């Protein structure tokens, strides 16, 4: 390969790339938060005795898990646009990623709840706890522990999937990289730099989540 690497254009663009990384991180955290909440709601709705609700949740989970995220982003951005609903790139991407995340998390919650023995709920109710108290103080803490690691995986996935946002015109890290690439034609340098930044962001996010987990599950470790 007859190519001289020039890193100066990348270094000059570094402030903008880092700023765009913040957008990536923002979008990811927001989508993850919304996805966690909606996923829990979906999990309960899916167990609902009311058929339409159940069908709604099942459809959501099936579509979210079995279609490409790229397609989901396009639907929120261009698909809704066909009906005159114009979401900004930022909103479209957050909506699509949380939609996707909720679908996956609903399944993860199912696994988490399945890991809590039925007797726990019964025991809690026998002790006079309401259904809500049993959920809040007995089951959810155990579910959280069970789903914590799958959840961190999901978060990594969201950070990386947010790069699809550039296809809806979002100037997150990939979009910004593409912008500088087409201005300077320093393709290899810019994409390598972006890959390194993604790696660092993901590693830091995982470390932070690990630290949080370490603190959250102190009691369990002590009991062992």
């Amino acid at each position: 390969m007859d190519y001289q690497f020039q890193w100066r254009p990348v270094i000059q663009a570094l402030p903008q790339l880092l700023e765009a990384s913040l957008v990536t991180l923002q979008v990811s955290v927001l989508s993850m938060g919304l996805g966690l909440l909606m996923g829990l709601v979906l999990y309960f709705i899916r167990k609902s005795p009311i058929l339409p609700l159940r069908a709604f949740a099942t459809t959501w989970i099936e579509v979210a898990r079995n279609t490409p995220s790229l397609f989901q982003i396009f639907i929120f951005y261009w698909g809704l646009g066909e009906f005159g609903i114009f979401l900004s790139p930022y909103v479209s991407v957050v909506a699509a990623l949380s939609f996707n995340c909720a679908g996956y998390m609903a399944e993860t919650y199912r696994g988490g709840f399945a890991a809590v023995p039925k007797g726990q709920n019964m025991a809690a109710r026998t002790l006079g706890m309401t259904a809500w108290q049993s959920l809040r103080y007995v089951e959810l803490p155990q579910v959280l522990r069970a789903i914590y690691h799958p959840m961190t995986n999901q978060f990594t996935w969201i950070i990386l999937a947010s790069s699809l946002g550039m296809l809806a015109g979002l100037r997150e890290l990939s979009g910004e990289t593409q912008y500088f690439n087409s201005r300077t034609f320093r393709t290899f340098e810019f994409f390598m730099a972006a890959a390194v930044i993604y790696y660092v962001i993901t590693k830091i996010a995982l470390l932070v989540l690990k630290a949080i987990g370490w603190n959250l599950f102190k009691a369990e470790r002590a009991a062992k």
Partner: protein
Amino acid sequence: MSKLRTFSFLAPAILAASLAAAPAYADKLDDVLNSGTLRCAVVLDFPPMGYTDANNEPAGMDVDICKDLAERMGVEAEIVGVTWAERIPSLISGRSDVAIASSSDSLERAKTVGFSIPYMVFQFQALLPADSTVTSWDELKDLNVGVAIGTTYESELQAYKDANWTDSSGEITTFQSENDTYLAVSQGRVAAGIATDTAIANIVAADTYQNIKAGPVAPFGADIVGFMTVRNEYGWLNFLNLYINRAYRDGTLQDLYGKHIGGTMPDLTTAGVYY
């Protein structure tokens, strides 16, 4: 020291030997002639310059120029379909020998790639929804204008806005491709899109979108494009330059322009300056 002197008589011999041993440098032009195939990187979603026809074969002015160049070199033409972003990686990784891909010759890009002399000139123009009331360029000032990211017209539009529309309440929305820009205009997501005059004439004539029309031409000058190749391939660039010169002189470029765009080929020279 004495040892060094002992062997110093060998120095001219070593020099001569190393010169003789140095491999003859085969440049890109040799490579193409020897391989018998000219591989051109062409962007195939930029009609009428490059696209795929009804039989899914590459077609367009850039494609025909590649074929003409290959014919004159006595080799086979091979079209390598690329996106805007893949043009340079395609050249550098050796997948193509030349990019004939309507590439604007900015100095920023010339820091990385080698440009030929111009072979085509575009104008920038606004694409409007059919019901738009915009008739002059400066009416775009406070509107949401869409443009494909990383294109020359994107940076030109931004620069023009910064210089002339300082109190603008409008915004510039960037899209990943030309097609996204057209779609956004047709949906009404943006009040106008910017693209090249040839592309706009093409998309307005095609029946993909019913509700769009051509708008005012941008005041920021012509978009002059050249072939691109690896920066240090001087011999190859010289050959390409001569080809463009001859293809213009003998009317080939005019014929292709008439076939794909219609009308008279724009002047490729810049008045008052040597290239």
